[in-house]
């Protein structure tokens, strides 16, 4: 099994079922892989078989989209138990979730819904992240999400909120540069200035993906190449925060693996250039 303690500085990609064949029949040159945990919650079958196979050859990161850390009415324990089982099975490089909520009562929206950035929400997130880290017996990373609305009740800028969460819980920050850019456009703030809130040593991973444009805002659909503006912002982040493991995500209209490898190569070049 590839050692999870050797932190890869090269770029990785999100492994999707469309590319299973590439990884089962060959050994694509990529630094590491990340998967959505919910696709591996089964008792057995091909998905877990592929996961075990790639885990033997690549550092692996587990990324959740359904834990709903920020639901005011409680954490869904069965979801956390399934994550725990997967963490034990794969001994991953990182375990990450989002700064958001998605479940409400008996219903799950299966989406990354925005939290109001208030002191109350911060205290809730701190207690949830503490709890998850205790159950999993490891630190997790928390990712900033893209949002299409902000609340009148907001008191704390998003990245300050996540920086404070990291300071209070010891969790790491998964900085999604595309989400930050989308939010800067959608809500009219300066993304570069937002970086000031973050402490270099808390940023353990970066995400990059494509977005699209709607009538009056940007939509984070992970369905295209990373845009030039997001690459620019990424270059600044790498110069400022160092050689951070970077992931290319693609979730809609998934292209050939080579397109993702090309994007990852571009991230590698930026990392190499900044730290030559």
């Amino acid at each position: 099994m590839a050692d999870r303690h050797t932190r890869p500085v090269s770029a990785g990609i999100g492994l999707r079922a469309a590319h299973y064949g590439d990884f089962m029949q060959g050994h694509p040159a990529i630094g590491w892989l990340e998967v959505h945990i919910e696709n591996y919650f089964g008792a057995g079958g091909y998905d877990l078989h592929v996961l075990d196979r790639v885990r033997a050859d690549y550092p692996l990161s587990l990324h959740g989209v359904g834990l709903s850390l920020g639901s005011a009415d409680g954490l869904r324990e069965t979801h956390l138990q399934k994550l725990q089982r997967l963490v034990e099975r794969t001994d991953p490089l990182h375990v990450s979730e989002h700064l958001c909520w998605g479940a409400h009562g008996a219903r799950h929206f299966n989406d990354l819904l925005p939290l109001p950035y208030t002191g109350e929400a911060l205290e809730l997130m701190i207690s949830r992240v503490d709890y998850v880290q205790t159950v999993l017996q490891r630190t997790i990373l928390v990712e900033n999400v893209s949002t299409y609305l902000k609340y009148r009740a907001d008191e704390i800028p998003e990245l300050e909120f996540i920086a404070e969460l990291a300071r209070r819980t010891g969790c790491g920050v998964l900085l999604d540069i595309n989400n930050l850019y989308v939010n800067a456009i959608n809500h009219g703030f300066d993304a570069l200035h937002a970086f000031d809130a973050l402490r270099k040593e808390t940023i353990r991973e970066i995400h990059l993906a494509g977005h699209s444009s709607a009538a009056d805002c940007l939509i984070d659909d992970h369905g295209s190449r990373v845009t030039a503006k997001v690459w620019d912002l990424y270059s600044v982040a790498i110069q400022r925060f160092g050689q951070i493991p970077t992931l290319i995500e693609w979730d809609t209209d998934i292209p050939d693996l080579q397109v993702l490898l090309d994007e990852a190569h571009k991230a590698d070049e930026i990392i190499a250039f900044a730290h030559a």
Partner: protein
Amino acid sequence: MKRIKPTRLLLSRMPDLAATQNALAAALVDNDDAQGAIALIDATQDIANARVAIYRNNILSNARNALAASFPIVVKIVGAEFFGTLARAYCASHPSSSGDLNEFGEQFAEFIDSFAHTQALPYLADVARVEWLTHRARYAADHPPIDMQAVASITCEHYERLIMDVHPSVAILASRYPVYRIWEVHQDDYVGEVAVDLWSGAESVVVYRRQFHTDVAPLTAAEYVLLGEAARKQPLGHALQLAFETDAAFDFSASLERWISAEIVVGLRTQ
């Protein structure tokens, strides 16, 4: 926090987190119940409505895509547009309750049975049942094939008390409609006559996974009875008796040979 806004002073009048999530959840479920959420959003009413609609559409589209991935034959039969209508109505009556969208769809067949606009397609619910069992089979636990050496060591006089173990992925379904034939003609690699006589009679199927490949096979009435008893861990003597009552000419050894090679039967053991 460093930069405390003057609005802090008004905080006692701000809704708490639970109230905020209640209001947004209501707006996401029902377009007509958005006023509470709109009032909380820092934008003009029009923009706030449009932004809530982005989430509403994302949620519906995620749910529809998950359903379409689990029910590809239902999509082929009704077409993508009507499937969208089905998905929307299913989301409204049976909303997702899990953070794992792979679980969404468990009640889709029952929903189709009761939905007013699918009554003209009475076989559709059974097609959905076969697809849901196939979806479940994909994630079922692994199991090695039968150990033939262990089987060879079983002496004949014990056969009545034998237990026949089926693979964890195995599920059976009896339909009033030719459900295997409908399934077969909608496979991507199917060649031949595509017309199905919907009144050609009842058919039963077994859904299973051999290694990593899920598949569906037709069952005779006697086979359906036997596999059902086996899945309930009933002794072979009792199961065979019921199977022969269904069909006196049932050829057990031929069925068993097929099921062993398909890894439907993965063990034969004394209790």
